[in-house]
Structure formats: structure tokens, C-alpha cells
């Protein structure tokens, strides 16, 4: 949908070309740098709140280190899925089926038949299911001309149904030590899940900002007609975007399965909402044409840091929810505020 109010963010300041400092980490320009800085600010505030409310815990460096990894691990599977979602949204679409695809991929990968092929078979299955369902989404949308919202909603319903039917509505145990090990392995002291997240985010960043695929994504989402008249195969590209999202779901499903040592038709419930919200909070336009991977990651981190803050403070669910609503609003308002003033700061003429 369209923002109905004029967004001051759509007309960013002009900067001198060469200013590397502001550009290096977000090739999309100041605006995004500004937004990301603001999100880092929000994260810092959340951590400070944690320190203030639980000085006892935060005084133990070992606990702090563990806590950081806890937050990151919690963000890992949803973070991977959010990368795919960000591509889809930048490309002018939306994917409501990510949670359901994760469940289907997880459940399929943990059937007795699949598990008999070992870790390789499970990984292959999860990825194949993810990419396959993503392709179906893409076909329905690009060649069947279904609205993305409806096509992926249908997939969401259908994939959960299929997952329930494959699993017989039972939780399926993963007996594979390699798969389960994904959740407990550390490499040089860093949990493997965190490493996977970092790799996927890095790959997503490169893909979006440094490859022709990324450029086509922006073009297709920003003005599909212009993209088409410039010779870009809009339909095929759209198809690929949903396949990419499906791929991320497959990876995410393996990560979740490893964490739970099991999979279930109801798992990853409403991940689509979280992923979309994280992408948007990170600065991706829901109407397509622009967005950032790094921002989306920060969006995910904001959510998992909030959850962590609530947990260490022992809040009841209802107060959690009320406060969470407030924090989301505050985070976005801060972002806008910071962004506005940063822009002014950067564009001030000597």
C-alpha cells in the first residue's frame, strides 16, 4: 500500500558523491544510513534499559556475552527469512507464506523416510521444499497474475494443511545428530546459527547492492512497467524472487528444526508478520522499489532484544504486549526524528 501522507524520507538530501564514510555500509545512501543509525540508537536504548533494570545480571561479563548470543540466536532463523522477505518486498511483492513454508519444509525434512537419508537428505529436502513452494508462489503471481497477497495467503493456508497431513499433526523428532548439532555447535566461540545468519545477511547485501539481480529487483519493484520497457524480464524476475524467499525459508526451517530437535505443522507461526514488520522497520518500502538488508537485520534485532528485555524483567504477557506496541511506535518515531535531523546535518552547506 501507499503511504497516504507525504513522506519526508522520499526526498533525501543530496550529498557529495565521494563521501565514503556515510556510504560504505549502505550503498543506498544517506537516508538509509540515517535510518540504520537510528535503529542502532534504539537498540542501544533497549540495552541500556536492560542494564538499568537488571544491573545484577549485566555485571557479569560472562552472562552478557551469553545474552548477546542468545539474542542473536533467537534472531537467526527469522533473520534469514527476513532477508528473503526484504527482496520480495523491494521487488514489489509480499510473501505471507513464509511461516507455513518453514513448517512444511521442517516437517518434510523430519519424516522418517527423509531422516533415513541422514543430514544430507534432510538439508536437501528442506531446501527443495522451500524453493519448490517459492516457485509455485512465483508462478501463480508472475504467470497466473494473482495478487501476491492472495497467492501467498492461499499458499500459507495450503502449506500448513499439507504439513499437518504429512506429520499426522504429531511433532516429529529429529534424530539426526548433525542437524541437531547446528544449534549447539560453536565456531571460534561463535554459535553456528549466528554465523549462518551473518553469512546470509552478507550474501543478501551483496546480491542486492552489487549484482544485476539486485538492480533488477529494485527496478521491478520501483516501476514494473519501466523495467519491462527497459528489457527486463519482469515475470521471470518475480518468479526468482519468490524462489529466493522460499530458499531462505528452507534454510530457516533447518535452523528452527535444529533448535527444537523436532518439527511441527504449527511451527514458525506468524513468522510472516514478524518478517514483514522487521523489513519495514528497517526502512523497506512496502510499496516496493527500495529497501535495505542491513536495516531489516536491525529490525529483527530490535524485536529479539525487546523479547529479551521482557524476559529478564519477568513481565507478564499482557504488559509485554502493551509495552511492545509502544516501543514499536517509539522506534519508528525516533527513526524519523533522527533521520530528519541527520539529513539536515549532512546536507548543510558550508
Amino acid at each position: 500500500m501507499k503511504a497516504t501522507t507525504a513522506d519526508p524520507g522520499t526526498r533525501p538530501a543530496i550529498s557529495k558523491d565521494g563521501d565514503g564514510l556515510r556510504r560504505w555500509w549502505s550503498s543506498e545512501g544517506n537516508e538509509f544510513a540515517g535510518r540504520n543509525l537510528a535503529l542502532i540508537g534504539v537498540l542501544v536504548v533497549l540495552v541500556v534499559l536492560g542494564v538499568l533494570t537488571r544491573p545484577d545480571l549485566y555485571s557479569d561479563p560472562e552472562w552478557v556475552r551469553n545474552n548477546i548470543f542468545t539474542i542473536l540466536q533467537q534472531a537467526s532463523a527469522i533473520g534469514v527469512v527476513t532477508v528473503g522477505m526484504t527482496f520480495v518486498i523491494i521487488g514489489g511483492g509480499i510473501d505471507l507464506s513464509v511461516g507455513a513454508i518453514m513448517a512444511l519444509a521442517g516437517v518434510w525434512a523430519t519424516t522418517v523416510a527423509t531422516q533415513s537419508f541422514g543430514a544430507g537428505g534432510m538439508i536437501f529436502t528442506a531446501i527443495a521444499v522451500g524453493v519448490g513452494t517459492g516457485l509455485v508462489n512465483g508462478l501463480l503471481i508472475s504467470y497466473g497474475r494473482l495478487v501476491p497477497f492472495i497467492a501467498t495467503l492461499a499458499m500459507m493456508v495450503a502449506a500448513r494443511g499439507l504439513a499437518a497431513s504429512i506429520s499426522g499433526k504429531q511433532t516429529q523428532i529429529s534424530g539426526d545428530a548433525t542437524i541437531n548439532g547446528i544449534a549447539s555447535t560453536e565456531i571460534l566461540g561463535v554459535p553456528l546459527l549466528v554465523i549462518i545468519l551473518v553469512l546470509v545477511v552478507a550474501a543478501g547485501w551483496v546480491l542486492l547492492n552489487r549484482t544485476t539481480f539486485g538492480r533488477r529487483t529494485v527496478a521491478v519493484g520501483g516501476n514494473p512497467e519501466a523495467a519491462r520497457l527497459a528489457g527486463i524480464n519482469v515475470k521471470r524476475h518475480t518468479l526468482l524472487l519468490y524462489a529466493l524467499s522460499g530458499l531462505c525459508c528452507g534454510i530457516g526451517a533447518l535452523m528452527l528444526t535444529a533448535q527444537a530437535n523436532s518439527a511441527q505443522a504449527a511451527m514458525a507461526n506468524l513468522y510472516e508478520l514478524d518478517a514483514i514488520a522487521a523489513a519495514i522497520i528497517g526502512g523497506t518500502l512496502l510499496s516496493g522499489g527500495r529497501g535495505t538488508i542491513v536495516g531489516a537485520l536491525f529490525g529483527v534485532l530490535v524485536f529479539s532484544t525487546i523479547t529479551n528485555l521482557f524476559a529478564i524483567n519477568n513481565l507478564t504477557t499482557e504488559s509485554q504486549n502493551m509495552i511492545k506496541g509502544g516501543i514499536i511506535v517509539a522506534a519508528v518515531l525516533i527513526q524519523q526524528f533522527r533521520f530528519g535531523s541527520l539529513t539536515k546535518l549532512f546536507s548543510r552547506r558550508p
Partner: protein
Amino acid sequence: MDENVIQESGDGVILRLTDVVKTFPGVRALDGVQLEVRAGEVHCLLGQNGAGKSTLIKVLAGVHRPDSGRVEWRGRPVEFANPQAAMRAGIATIYQELDLVDDLSVAENAFLGHEPRRLGFVRRGETARRTRAILERLGHGEIPARRPVHRLPSAGKQIVSMARALSHDAKLIIMDEPSAVLAHDEVGNLFRIIRELTAAGIAVVYISHRMEEIREIGDRVTVLKDGRTTAAGLSARETPTRDLVTRMTGRTIEYVFPDRVTHATDAAPLLEVRGLTRHGEFADVSLTVRPGEIVGIAGLVGSGRSELLETIFGARRAEAGTVVMDGRRLRAGSVGAAVRAGLGMAPEERKSQALLLDEPIYRNVTLAGFSRFAAGGFTRTAREAASARAVAARLDLRPPDVHRPVRQLSGGNQQKVVVGRWLVGTGPRNGGPHDAGATPTRLLLLDEPTRGVDVGARAELYQVVRDLAAAGLGVLLVSSEVPEVLGLADRVLIMREGSVIHEAPGGELDEEAVLDMIMAGSLTTGALAAETDTTEGEAA
């Protein structure tokens, strides 16, 4: 009624701007503008693309607030907080970019924001009736008042924009390049209305890049250059063109077409179109373009030229007929196939069909070619930017910073980006191996390429098109400006109601003859709206 009497200060001035300044982040769009408009006159604003004309009128219309300076309206200093305030004060505006709501009807658009209503209910009959009256006045009673505007061609939309301006009881009507999307006969119609308005004491501020229009309709001229008034109150009829252009550009420009090169007529055709048909748009069109040849298509708005180009390019699927490029038949309805075969098209509507408004200029320029710059799928933006800078320089893009989002460019400069897309890498070779983005395009389809482009840049563009042809490209050009078609094309096709009715070498036709031919069909006035809305009778 008393307060509606126009209060003129001594010399009939109803609007006076003094030292108006408006800055956007990083740009001083208006840098001390003076303007004085008298009641009942047509006051022309002249200036190059990006000079600040649209920004100025947006200040007048309450869209932008000036940073400093004075606006006096009917003798009193004013500051319009929003468009509504300006409208209430009696200033109506036709904006450069069409500002209609696609899914509302012609009548609803005309009266948007001030609908005739009763208790919140729209008086639909009344709205339609008043709209029809305005449309009649505009000479377009055939446009159905209840048709959604997205089903009108762009010229029809322009009429609706005008109808909207006339729906207000305005004392000043501002028109920002209204003729850019109008064909010859429509411009005549527009001028008739303007004369009616001024005869009633209403002032008109008129913006156009076409000198002959300024001469015909204008009373006085104010020239803007880089956000400053460089000349005010010149006579529109008597000031020599050379003078005006010099004040606009700071240099002298020959407003002439580059020489034609004669070339072999026996060369094998590059493009061959046979019997191309889309029902309701055009029928049985055949044409050829040889390498190095510029073929122009003249015709009325709505004669099906844009659809023809789009169909050749594969953006629309032909219902019958073939397109052959280099002896190989193109797959119908596939832009990809056309591009691979060496076709390129600069479409008619820049905003909806060509631009990524929030992306930087250079990425818009290289939109059709970034993969040719890429290595192994990885883009090389530095080279893209360098190439885009070369294009920007050739077309005199202002400002020339290619990292700026296209949205911030003035209308004419946006148009340069659209055309420039197909010039990437075609510049004078600097010999180096760096011409990675050299376009493989060998046939260029240009649809109204100079819409909104200023005199200076237009001359550059003509030269560029000639150079391309000289380098062996074929060009198929559609333009509603007959002199442009005649001056640039080696061969001219004349289209009327979807059919090619005449073909002749460019040198053998004159404007009069062409106009006669294309107008012959306009008696039916079928161009803007094919049928009248029969439901309206009952509804009224």
C-alpha cells in the same frame, strides 16, 4: 460581488513577486525571482529546463512556501499555507505533471475538493452537467463526463486538467506546459479559451518551451535563468527570439535542424513491419526503416502512433501482422526478444513508463544497460556513473549530478534521462576500451522525445539523433510537433485513425500539407473519445 472586482494597483498589476527564494536541500531552485502579472494578460514564463518555472508556480499555488521574499496578490501581501488557500484566493493551476485520480470520473476529477454537494452527498447530476458545460467550452463536449480518467488518452487527461482549473472561479490561471501533450489542433483550441479568459479580465501565466506559441498567445514575457529573473515584462511579440534564447541560456543557439545526410535507398531494411494490427488502435500498418534512416510518423493525438511503437517493441501483443528485424521475425508480445534483436524504445509517458523516480539518475540512465557494464553478474557502478555523466553532458542535464534521485529533476530534465537511456555508450568514442555500455541498439523507437525539453537541449538532441543515424542506427520517431518530424525525418509517414494514409520523403512535405492531411479525419473528433456517453442523458 464587490470583493470579486479585481483590485488593480495603478498599472493593473494583480500579482507581484519580489525577491522570492525557495531552496530544496542542496538546490536553490528560486534565487530572487521578480514577477509582475497584470489582469487580463497572458504572461509567459520562459526558462531552460530546471530554471525554476514549476517551482515558482508551486509557490504561487500554495504547494511550496517560499523561504523569503514577498508575494502580493491583488494589492495585499499573502502567504498561502496550502493549495486550498490559493484556490480560495482565486488562483487555479494546471500542473506540469498530470495530477488526476485515475479511478475517478472526468467530472469527479474536475470538481475534486469542491464538489457540488448537498449534506455531504455529491450532486452527481449537477457535477456532470457543470463538467459538460466546461468541456463544451473547451471544445470537447464529446468527452464523457462519467468516464474514469484512466480510460482517456493523455491528451484527454490534459483537457480534464484544464477543466478542473476552469471549474474554479479564478482570477489567475497558471498553466505549466499545457501544450506539451497536445497536438496542433488542440493547441489552437487552448488558445481560443485563453483569449476568452483574458477577455473576461482573468490573468493567465503560461509556460511553454515552444517559441511560436509564446509569440502567438503571449502578451509579456518574464525570463528565468538559474532561479533568477533575467528579464521581466518583455513584449512577447516584439522581442527577437535570439534575444529571448540568449537571456534564457546565456548563449546563442541556432534553432535549426541539423543537415540531412543522403544515403543509399537500396540498403536492405533493418526493420520491416507488415500488416500490423491491433483492433481499435491501428490496422494493417506496414513500414520499413533502413539503417541510417530516420522515419517520422506524424498524426493527431489518438491516431494510434504510440500503440504502434509499443507493439513493434513487443510491449503490446500484435493481433495480426509481423515485425521483422534484420530478416528475423520477432516474437509477438515479447519486449525481451525485441531488445535482444537490437530495438530500444523511449516511451511516451516518462513517469509511468520509464523512470524509477527514487533511484539516482545514473541508474535510470543505465536501466536498460547495467548488465552490459557488469562482470559476472556484479554491477560496476563507477563505470555506469561515468557513462551516465557523458550522456548528461551531451544533453545538458541540469543539475549534472548523476547521483541525485530523478524525482528531484525538473520535468524537462527527466525527459532527457528517458531519451538518454538509449544513448549510453554511443558518445564520441574516446578510443579507450571503456565503452563497456555501448548500446547494441540498432533501431531506436522514439515517442515524443522532446516533450517538455527546452530550446537549447532540443537542438542538442536533434544533433544526437542525427549522429546516431549517421553511425548506422535506424530511428522511428513519433512526434506531435510537425516541424520536428519534418525537420528531422528522412521519410515521413502520416497516420490517421490507426492507418498510414501517406508516405513521403521529409524534404517534400511542408507543415501546411501535413496538417491538412492529419486534420482531415479530425472532423469526426473521434480522437479523444471514441463515443459519447449515452447514459448521461438519462442520468441528468
